[in-house]
């Protein structure tokens, strides 16, 4: 008998999940479940579980849609945001949450990401970013750091990586944030705020892949990789007390940008209303 949270919001007959020992994806999926639970339990909002839809693509991350016990859809590679866009258009009141990976959303589905961001369509995209293609055997992805190794980059990756949060923000997303596995409570709160945000929100969550990325790059086991996150990924409150020198080599975990650009389905509804009046 698992904990109440897991029992209530996950399909326990599908657990334990398929992810490798120490994989960060399980913790991120839990963060998503906790954020949704907080919103359902919050009397300020009148949400029930049918107000949430989970959409995923293909890859390690995208298995999450099968485990989370909500209205969910596991779609084709890179197209999670495309399917989610259709769901949001059909019923704009829904909180449509896309669970995707670095490869799924920034390589195969890169165009869907930037165009949904450009339109500021009200989706919440949580990218499980583990810097590698895990499911297919450890090939480098668009977020593999320069110089790091992968099965397809045995001498080091020549490419420079995408920063998914900044990429989406640059394309027009009105909410862009970063999270990680170590700072689980902070990341849960960021995801909660991302779901509440009206426009397109991206949460780039740094996962850990001890099996491929960690082993290829001698990053140690899952515990070592989490300790690295603890030292090098810095939550907002601490970041702003640090000097420029102290920040070298470290990254901010938190909300990077948030603004109130018009949301796409609302703008679209206005056009429909305007056309109806003309008749």
């Amino acid at each position, binding site marked *: *008998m*698992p*904990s109440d949270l*897991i029992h209530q919001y*996950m399909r326990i007959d599908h*657990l*334990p*999940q398929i*992810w*490798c*020992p*120490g*994989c*960060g*994806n*399980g*913790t991120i999926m*839990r963060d998503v479940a906790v954020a949704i639970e907080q919103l359902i339990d919050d009397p300020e909002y009148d949400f029930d579980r049918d107000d949430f839809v989970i959409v995923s693509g293909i890859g390690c991350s995208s298995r999450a849609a099968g485990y989370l016990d909500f209205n969910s859809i596991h779609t084709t590679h890179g197209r999670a945001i495309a399917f989610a866009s259709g769901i949001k258009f059909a019923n704009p009141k829904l909180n449509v949450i896309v669970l995707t990976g670095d490869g799924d959303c920034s390589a195969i589905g890169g165009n869907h990401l930037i165009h949904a961001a450009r339109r500021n369509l009200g989706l919440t995209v949580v990218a499980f970013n583990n810097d590698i293609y895990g499911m297919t055997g450890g090939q480098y992805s668009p977020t593999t750091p320069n110089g790091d190794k992968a099965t397809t980059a045995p001498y080091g990756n020549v490419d420079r990586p995408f920063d998914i949060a900044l990429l989406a923000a640059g394309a027009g997303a009105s909410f862009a944030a970063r999270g990680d596995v170590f700072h*689980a*409570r902070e990341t849960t709160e960021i995801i909660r705020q991302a779901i509440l945000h009206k426009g397109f929100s991206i949460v780039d969550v740094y996962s850990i892949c*001890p099996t491929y990325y960690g082993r290829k790059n001698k990053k140690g*086991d*899952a*515990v070592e990789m*989490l300790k690295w996150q603890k030292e090098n990924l810095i939550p907002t409150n601490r970041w702003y007390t640090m000097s420029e020198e102290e920040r070298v080599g470290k990254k901010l975990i938190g909300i990077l940008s948030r603004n109130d650009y018009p949301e796409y389905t609302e703008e679209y509804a206005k056009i429909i209303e305007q056309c109806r009046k003309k008749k």
Partner: protein
Amino acid sequence: MIGRKRLVVETAWCKGCGICAAFCPKQVLEIQHEKVSIKAPEACISCGQCELRCPDYAIYLVNIEE
């Protein structure tokens, strides 16, 4: 054990990654034969770090019924 909570282990779900044992501030847990075991239950302070960090939801706190 402080508070009215106790640890529960879902052994079948544990993959023995060792995250819970490493982040437990009171060294309550250890990994034996690739599974977590509770070696010092009396030292547990119910902080919930293990439940928060276990990627497999294999360890958690429950309220002790009075």
